[in-house]
């Protein structure tokens, strides 16, 4: 119940295309869902986050879509750029557990 399942494991997108990464969870106590971007050798950087009372959040080229009934959320990267090539992690937070539970990560490669 504490898992967050992330797919795909890796993704190749052409420059200008849309990258879509999906996550699913079971625990309805999760109350905050962030996405992190990680470049090799660096720490995870908070990209965008959503709370379950909202179905969509957009910040620039990055959008989170959230489906509470299906217990799924996804990250959409519009107009993907080579600089977006990184590993993306979804995560979930449960206030009672005071920690982030991470998905397995998606390695995105954006080809020029």
């Amino acid at each position: 119940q504490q898992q967050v399942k992330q797919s795909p494991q890796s993704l190749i997108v052409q420059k200008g295309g849309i990258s879509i990464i999906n996550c699913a969870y079971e625990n309805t106590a999760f109350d905050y869902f962030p996405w992190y971007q990680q470049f090799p050798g660096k720490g995870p950087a908070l990209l965008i986050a959503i709370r379950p009372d909202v179905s969509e959040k957009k910040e620039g080229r990055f959008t989170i879509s959230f489906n509470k009934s299906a217990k799924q959320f996804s990250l959409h990267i519009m107009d993907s750029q080579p600089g977006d090539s990184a590993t993306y992690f979804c995560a979930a937070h449960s206030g009672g557990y005071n920690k982030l539970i991470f998905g397995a990560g998606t390695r995105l490669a954006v080809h020029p």
Partner: protein
Amino acid sequence: EPEVTQTPSHQVTQMGQEVILRCVPISNHLYFYWYRQILGQKVEFLVSFYNNEISEKSEIFDDQFSVERPDGSNFTLKIRSTKLEDSAMYFCASRKGTSSYEQYFGPGTRLTVT
């Protein structure tokens, strides 16, 4: 922009030795965390710390691990007797307060146990 800092960036130690990993969280943050990431794998929670005590710890965080906030700025993770399987990236994170869930991560310390 304030950021979490960690030292050292890379630590090499022999099995059985003690190591201390150091972190300086963002100054007005109240919650502190340690996570680890084994090469190529996901980020795993180790421990959370609030109000000068551990609020939660994972199964990984056994008696060999301890955390401390020795002063108003540093947050440390100590591994008493390192094992080969402790080799990983260790990330410190901090969070502002109860109503703000954003956790900001440091650049990490790569621990190599030989």
